[in-house]
């Protein structure tokens, strides 16, 4: 296959929001998510250095997972409205996120250039399904897989700090903000900043280092665990 594409294929930055929509998210947290998604779209769309590169998928998980927005040019995305349901199963959420990214990148066409995908994982609770979610995490973040993603994880409410650490591939955050709506808003603001700063860092052969600016937030970065160091 020729290295030169016969159709226009701009490089993209695949991003997936993996959002816990279990029943504990009902009320202010879910309202904050639904308010924030269109604002994230507007913010990315208005910034060419981000909007021309970032492609966004949204995955929800509870007892089951749904790809509510496949990997999409955000300028043309209809942002979903989420609603709470069921329990908390990290495994299905992570697997669906990996699927959304893989299918979305493949859908760009052969030879399409893309930056390493990133999953932003957000949960307010503990995994309570009878399945080991760490296998899914290992698969979707494999360095041997050309679609292997990085995971930035955020926890609040009743989420377990150690588990949130384990989900991430390097960046894990927790907020003790007492108002869950405010916590969600702060997390999504940080997600937006990370998408923008990372998109803007794709400026050299080896640019694109994932960054997650925390300025002005009450988020606490959790320390690296041994599996991240390795």
């Amino acid at each position: 296959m020729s290295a030169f594409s016969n159709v226009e294929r701009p490089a993209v930055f695949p991003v997936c929001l993996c959002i816990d929509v279990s029943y504990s998210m009902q009320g202010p947290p879910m309202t904050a998510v639904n308010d924030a998604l269109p604002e994230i779209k507007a913010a990315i769309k208005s910034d060419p250095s981000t909007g021309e590169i970032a492609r966004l998928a949204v995955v929800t998980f509870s007892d089951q997972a749904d790809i509510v927005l496949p990997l999409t040019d955000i300028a043309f995305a209809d942002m979903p409205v989420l609603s709470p349901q069921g329990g908390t199963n990290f495994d299905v959420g992570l697997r669906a996120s990996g699927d959304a990214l893989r299918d979305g990148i493949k859908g760009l066409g052969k030879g399409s250039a893309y930056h390493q995908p990133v999953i932003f994982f957000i949960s307010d609770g503990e995994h309570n399904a009878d399945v080991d979610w760490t296998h899914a995490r290992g698969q979707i973040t494999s360095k041997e897989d050309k679609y292997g993603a990085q995971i930035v994880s955020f926890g609040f409410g009743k989420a377990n700090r150690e588990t949130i650490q384990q989900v991430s591939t390097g960046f894990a955050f927790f907020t003790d903000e007492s108002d869950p709506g405010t916590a969600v808003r702060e997390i999504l603001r940080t997600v937006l900043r990370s998408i923008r700063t990372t998109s803007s860092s794709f400026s050299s052969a080896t640019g694109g280092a994932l960054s997650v600016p925390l300025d002005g937030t009450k988020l606490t970065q959790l320390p690296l665990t041994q599996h991240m160091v390795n």
Partner: protein
Amino acid sequence: MRVGKFIGRKGRHAAAAPGHGAAVPDTTDTTEPGTADLTPPGPTPPGPTPPEPMATAVDNVSATDGYSATDSHSATDGDLATDAVLASGTPGTPGTPDDDNATGTALPPVAPPRTLATDAPQVGDHLQPLPLPRLAPTTTSLPGLRADGGLLGDRWLGAASLVGQSHLNGGSTAQDAYQFTLSDDGSLLIAAVCDGMGSRPLTSQIGAVLLASLLCEEARTVTAGKLAADPRAVLGGILDAACARVTQVRTAGLPGLTDRDLSCTAALALLPATGTGWAARVGDCAVLRLAGEAWETVFARDGGPVNMVSAALPHPTPAEVAEYAPLAEESPGDCLILASDGLAEDAFGSPAVRAWLAERWSRPCDAAAMADSLRYRRRGSHDDRTALVVWSRQLRNG
């Protein structure tokens, strides 16, 4: 899936925007080869056709094409998007430690800057105006634009390096560098392109400039005969010696830095007067060939994410991580191109960009024309762009 498309050109043939002055005369077509002030210096025969100059414009400010009329700080309060902008100071590099502009203060609108007309294409759907550029306050920043064009030995070499929009958004320095020279005995043209690592935004440009210069310096003692005898050993030796000298310079003059702070990718080419040349690269700088409108890549393009590279320099064993390839003697009119990945990815991924560059580089270019060739706007292309083009020796009218 959405794909971009060639949506047109702008420039000297475009009607002037109201209030922005008149369209300027087309100067390109009236400037024929041999015009006194454009004739390249040095010996004429058997030199190449005089270079293609760039058309200029005095007041063709279709400057609103290209830039937003407001500074990127401008924003209104109230929503998540604004929160991000205000908290960061700029959408480009919010909150990064090197962002001296992160004042959190919305600035008043600024008039778009005057610019020169160009025929460079705009590629892709729904291209938005770009935010006003921000200069890098870094004291070791590179020029936002460097360009050269002229004879080196008996070959025409044109080169240009243009800072990427993502740097201009965030006020950070360009990170690409190029260098060229002749071997001491004049038997080899030597060219190098280096691309500093984005993960070292304050220092990698130093490494790129340093390595490009030292690669050329170390290669000067090579002869065409030595290259032909054992090309991989010669190229590997140059890489080893250049990296060792980078480390020496760093230790002596930049003791606060590590080799990783100076990391960059590199492409190096050694071209004899006749016969087979050779190229080496580390990382994803590209070496391309252009014959008419036909493009080839000398090194295979890596699969997988484009922001993950296989190797960078300095490296403990540079010769071992490098790739090597012969460069068959070119046909008349062909070009050999060393490119940073910012340009190479556009060439790989965009037929419109390839068509534009092939047309631009169908003749040797002077410095201004080389710079103009990189001024296309492509959706999603915000990286630094560097191209060093060597034209074959036999390109000549009549």
